[in-house]
């Protein structure tokens, strides 16, 4: 093999791929017309290239290049259709989830997720710190010792002596108390401070009639019914 042929054969592959400068290309073409060995090498490379390309094309078809793009386009069409529907909540949510799924493939997605988690954690801590004693779930008054039982008048004057508790004193325990019915006008008296007269709390626990807080300023005389 001539020295010129050696140099040209190194360029044949690049020539086949169309990567040579015009001067190199002219040199190679001159050599190919004058050297049978170089021409044979060139034709061998061409056949090999054609073979590789054919195999590559078959692989692409096998991998379903067309189907991949069809899938992407179909998905986009679905999202656009969901947007166009507008009124359909389900379609909107489906479209949003789809966009979210694709959006999470973004390099920024982990940062966004981390920011959301940190925000939730901070909000939870702030809520707990701001109101540690919140007990909204407890419907009953906090001072359960003051809760009246069915058939028992609620705390009229809990701070009075037992002999003076009158209607409010029954001595029953609340441990065995069944679920009390909701009473719209339920009322409890925590304390009374009377300078003149007496206070009586009149409650009918069986009915939903409002309680009456009586303030009788005058003692009823014997045989009189008082002010009532």
């Amino acid at each position, binding site marked *: 093999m001539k020295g010129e042929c050696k140099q040209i054969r190194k360029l044949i592959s690049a020539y086949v791929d169309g990567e040579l400068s015009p001067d190199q290309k002219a040199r190679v073409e001159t050599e190919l017309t004058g050297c049978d060995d170089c021409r044979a090498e060139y034709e061998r490379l061409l056949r090999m290239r054609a073979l590789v390309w054919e195999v590559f094309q078959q692989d692409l078809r096998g991998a379903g290049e067309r189907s991949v793009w069809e899938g*992407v*386009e179909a998905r*986009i069409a679905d999202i656009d259709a969901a947007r166009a529907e507008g009124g359909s909540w389900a379609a909107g949510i489906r479209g*949003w989830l789809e*966009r*979210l799924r*694709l*959006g999470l493939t973004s390099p*920024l*997605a982990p940062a*966004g997720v981390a920011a*959301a988690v940190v*925000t939730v954690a901070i*909000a939870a801590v702030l809520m707990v710190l701001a109101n540690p*004693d919140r*007990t909204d779930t*407890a*419907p009953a*008054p*906090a001072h359960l010792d003051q809760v009246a039982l069915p058939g028992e008048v609620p705390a*009229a*004057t809990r*701070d*009075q002596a037992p002999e*003076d508790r*009158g*209607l*409010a004193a029954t001595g029953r325990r609340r441990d065995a108390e069944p679920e009390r019915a909701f*009473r*719209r*006008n*339920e*009322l*409890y*008296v*925590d*304390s*009374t*401070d*009377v*300078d*003149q*007269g*007496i*206070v*009586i709390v*009149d409650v009918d626990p069986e*009915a939903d*009639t*409002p*309680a*009456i*807080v*009586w*303030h*009788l*300023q005058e003692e009823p005389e014997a045989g009189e*019914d008082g*002010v*009532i």
Partner: protein
Amino acid sequence: MTLRFPRTERFLPLLLLLLLLVPRGEARAAEPVAHCKVRVILAKKGEGGVDPAIRNPLKRYLTKSFGARYGAFELLDTRSMKIARGKRGEIPLPDGTWLRLTYLGNQGKFIKVSMEMPGVKTLIRIRDGGLFFQAGHRHKDGMMILAISATTTGKSTETPTRPRPAPRKPHHETKKKRGIAR
């Protein structure tokens, strides 16, 4: 073909989270207010019925609670008060006295209210939206009945501690009577 995914949509979950948190902040800032309505009713013996201005369920409550002793119920006055927590509202009464209501806070589903009239102060807990009567004061030739209802708006903040009980009075002053139940 180019996929269009606006950058803001990627952060939609974060925006939704912030939206969920914002209303809580506003609710926290809202001060609770008790809306108290006081209807002053004159109950008399004899016939007369219930004032047409008094409607159900108050009409039914009056006749059920006081109907055995009184036959005429006249609406003298209606007052409404908006009372902030820890604040006091006062209204004049037809007999020349007054009624003071102090909104002390909420306890569960109950509103804590201090009701004060000349010579008496009572701390009560009433169900939010409920109604009760104050009665016993003579007026003209009958008895004055106050129908007091209370509802709260805004965030219901629990009162952390039990209010101090009123000092005990000697027995002869705070004597309880039996036999007045309906």
